[in-house]
């Protein structure tokens, strides 16, 4: 049955597409492009607001809106808005702001579709929309061989992963004759069903940059401009986790899938943190750290249940602020990404150093910052579930992670170096301030957010 065409419900996606087209056709100057993109995102955000009330299935149930997807969309759009500002500040993308923004809006559109998809075909298309524009974004640093190489590698690896996903989906389709999420449940425990589950799993983990399908992310983050890396570490991840959460509605019954999740959570945390220790390039370090964070969130996702879903979303929300914040400061302070560029930052620009310290402490998971509260929710969900092995791994990994985050802190506060003042533009200061405030807010006054989320998860 084909549902009534309900344009209002897909208005956010439509607006983003309009924005993309407009940017590419008109190619406005730098500032206008930024303002136009931001306006598009704000309008799109405004269009998602009606979705907070009531659940609606559209297009024969392939596309579902409701409060929980709307929360994910809000987070994704917020991340997009911040990313647009960061890109605007990135000195190395100055000439290509309209293109970069167009690609970002296109990616965001894919993210929104993936969040609402309840049908494998639509999900796959959204997934590709997200991926293909990401490849282009990584390769978009003009005239830099490293950027082009990273983009190409990402595309090749992404192509392989997406082949896995597509193969898994077609197996499911072959067995059940349907692509609706909920209807494939009965065949999952059969032999072919388990293969399909494994293949779908590979696709999802690739999108989340979770071990052992994370290979693309350090190279891509190092090769891309730091601003783009920040965007890619947050928004696709939000969409990917939404994808995973809604898959788990029926895949949660599959023991194989849960075993895979556990393995991946453990590997991601451990691998990400261990590999980050040796890094000297900040975006690369943050790439490994974001692999580890994907592992933490997978712990929560694997616990199923509402407390797990709640923990996933809360952690993503905190992660949005702290990770984008860290990338934002990196973009402003260290365009090349070398850790030595942070030297003596506390004397050059105390505000940026303080904000960076807040982001890093939050990423480590220290109170009173959002990352701490998020981790607390993950642990509490895992304790309810009795996943002691993962809990132990998470705690040990948190301690390890302090080591490499502290290296940046040491560089900023303890090392002596050039102390000429480093002025930051008003936009940068405002944006850094807002993200810092967000991290504090989620760490101190998180109860209203939690109350709202507990109602919708």
């Amino acid at each position, binding site marked *: 049955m084909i549902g009534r065409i309900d344009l209002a419900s897909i208005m956010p996606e439509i607006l983003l597409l309009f924005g993309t087209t407009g940017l590419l056709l008109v190619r406005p100057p730098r500032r206008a492009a930024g303002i136009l993109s931001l306006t598009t995102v704000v309008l799109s955000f405004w269009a998602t607001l009606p979705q907070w009330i009531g659940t609606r299935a559209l297009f024969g149930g392939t596309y579902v809106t409701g409060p929980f997807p709307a929360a994910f969309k809000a987070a994704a759009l917020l991340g997009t808005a911040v990313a647009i500002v960061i890109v605007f500040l990135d000195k190395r993308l100055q000439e290509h702001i309209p293109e970069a923004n167009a690609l970002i809006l296109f990616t965001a559109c894919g993210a929104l579709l993936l969040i609402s998809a309840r049908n494998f075909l639509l999900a796959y298309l959204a997934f590709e929309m997200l991926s293909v524009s990401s490849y282009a974004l990584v390769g978009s640093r003009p005239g830099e061989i490293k950027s082009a190489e990273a983009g*190409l590698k990402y595309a090749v690896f992404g192509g392989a992963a997406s082949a896995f996903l597509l193969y898994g989906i077609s197996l499911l389709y072959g067995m059940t004759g349907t692509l609706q999420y909920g209807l494939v449940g009965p065949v999952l425990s059969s032999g072919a069903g*388990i293969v399909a589950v494994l293949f779908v799993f590979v696709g999802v983990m690739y999108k989340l940059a979770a071990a*052992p399908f994370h290979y693309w992310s350090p190279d891509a983050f190092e090769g891309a401009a730091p601003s783009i890396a920040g965007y890619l570490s947050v928004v696709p991840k939000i969409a990917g986790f939404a994808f995973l959460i809604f898959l788990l509605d029926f895949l949660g019954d599959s023991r194989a899938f849960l*075993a895979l999740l556990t393995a991946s959570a453990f590997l991601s945390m451990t691998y990400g943190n261990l590999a980050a220790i*040796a890094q000297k390039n900040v975006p690369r370090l943050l790439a490994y750290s974001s692999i580890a964070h994907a592992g933490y969130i997978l712990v929560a996702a694997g616990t199923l249940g509402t407390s797990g879903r709640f923990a996933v979303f809360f952690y993503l929300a905190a992660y949005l602020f702290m990770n984008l914040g860290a990338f934002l400061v990196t973009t402003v302070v260290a365009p090349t990404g070398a850790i030595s560029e942070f030297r003596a930052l506390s004397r050059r620009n105390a505000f940026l150093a303080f904000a960076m310290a807040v982001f890093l402490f939050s990423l480590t998971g220290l109170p009173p910052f959002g990352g701490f509260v998020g981790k607390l929710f993950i642990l509490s969900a895992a304790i309810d579930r009795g996943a002691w092995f993962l809990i132990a791994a998470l705690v040990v990994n948190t301690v390890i992670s302090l080591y490499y985050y502290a290296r940046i802190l040491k560089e900023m506060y303890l090392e002596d170096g050039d102390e000429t003042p480093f002025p930051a533009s008003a936009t940068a200061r405002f944006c850094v301030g807002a993200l810092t405030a967000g991290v504090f807010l989620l760490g101190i006054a998180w109860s209203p957010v939690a109350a709202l989320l507990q109602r919708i998860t």
Partner: protein
Amino acid sequence: MNSLALIIFAPLMMSLVQLFFGKRFRHLEKFTTAGGVGLAALLSIRNLASALHGHGAFPLAFSFSWFGFGGLRLGFHADNLAVPMLAMVSFVSLFVHIFSVGYMHGHPRYSRFFSYISFFTFAMLGLVASDNLLFFFICWELMGLCSYLLIGFYFEERTACLAAIKAFLTTRVGDVLFFIGIAALYGATGSLRFEEIARAATGGLIGQKALLFASLCILAGTIGKSAQFPLHGWLPDAMEGPSPVSALIHAATMVAAGIFLIARTAPFFPSAAMYAVIGVGSFTAFFAATMALVNRDFKKILAFSTISQLGYMLAGIGLGATAAGLHHLLSHAFFKALLFLGSGAVLHAVHTRNVDEMGGLAEKMPWTCATMYIGAFSLAGFPFLFSGFYSKDEIIGAALLFAAVSHRHAYLSPGILVAGKILSFLPFLLLLAAAGLTAFYTFRMMILVFHGEPRDRHRWEHAHEQPPTMIVPLVVLAFFSTAAFTFAFREPIETFFGSGTKESAVAAGAEVAHHFAMIASVIVGLGGIALAYAIYFFRKIPADFLMRNPQGRFLYDLFFRLYWTDEIYAGIARGAVALARRFGLFDRRGIDRIVDGTAPPLVSTSRFSGFIDLYVVDFFVNLTGDVTRALGRLARALQTGRIQDYALGAMIAVILLALWIGL
């Protein structure tokens, strides 16, 4: 979230801003923290006003849950006890801020100073508004920390460091007991909220012995924080800190937190614990006043007087007159802050704390002198015109009433009844005597500082009046030390804290007792002032009349050397060390022989375990480090940068995972 949250957290925010960015705003630093505290003052005074215009009860509350353990909710509420306290704390703090702008001018750690006192203000406001023991205790400890930092603010001087350590360690004794008390209450009731604990206690859900134990532990916390006997020794030494700190922390607010704690927890104190409260309070009131009589250090005289006045408040609450105790707390906060700030102004001018080197400063510093006189009159309880008179009077009246109706408490056998009757008069007598002493030492101090011939010409010539930023706070606080304060706030205080007597049957008796107490204390107070003038101003009686005979000499020494309490504590410490040595000797002579016999086998065993340690345990310890690093290297090695390797890695991963899920 509401204005209460803003009241509590605005000073905290500003303090942190100041701490981290203080140096950035070189010229703004005096405004940031004062702004936060000023906002808090404005809002809390508005709250007070709206609570007054509304009905008596005005619970303004917000709460938030923190860590989901045991259903713990941390909340704040501005109830009857808290609303006036919030206003007082933020108001006094604001004027101390303003005063400090001038007082600390030019100090290298200028901006840090403001950060500390603003942080302290946050802790005190949080404590007052906390509705549970946990947050109360957290703020309590934060104040202890601030107090330590601020007493030792001039850490270049050794005495300041030692005083800070002494204050921290002495109060720690009380804090540990307080914490044990909290744990006991939590164990008995499963809750940390004052309200729920009180409900459980009055409902008989807690055993009497447990309740008594917990109450005494809480009292111990108060004894430490409010410098009551026997943990009073730290407060005089704390005068090493800057004067505005003494005014804010060691007179008006932090030391009053102990009193506030008793007021909060009094609803569930068993009567035996209340007797302990009365005993400690009234004894300390008298005891500390005697030490102030002969002291020569300007600020230490005020410190002893603070200890003594805190004793009054404690006794008032113990006597069942919570309203009177808190009334005295509020009025004391203003006039004592005034006196300390005034003393700060004087020190700033003459650079000494020794009253022997002052004298005749009235003509040099007319404003300081005039405002301090108002504070002194208030402290001495000069009748009718000053706030201190009214609040102190209520407590003395309550003590008399307690003595008069004490047969109600006489559950003891009739034989002890008479002794009990006499004993029950003791608080009244002690407090009344202390009132006389207070009047005397206050005016002794004032005359020595401001009148007579300058005893140190050089210092006198260099003395000068202070700038307006320091005078204006004095004038404002002086205004609130007069009866204007009482007339403005007596009614609200009664509405807020409840009237002093609970039973209407004794209300009539209360009237009579109060009138009698008032007459007695007027006589004693005026007598004290007159004596001070006779001795030090008109010199009708020689100042050294005490020294003429050995008993007097002994008394003088007793007071001047603070009853040798410092020596006694040092002696206890030395005794403990000596005892430890003695044990050590016994150890070496007796036990060691036996131990020595077991040595050879032990040595070989420990060689063996040392070997194990070195080669087995250390191996594993080193292994963890090595493995971590090796894994890091491995992880890095896997990331070759070649896309073929990545694809291969992914394929191997798929195969391994397929094996893992049992395909």
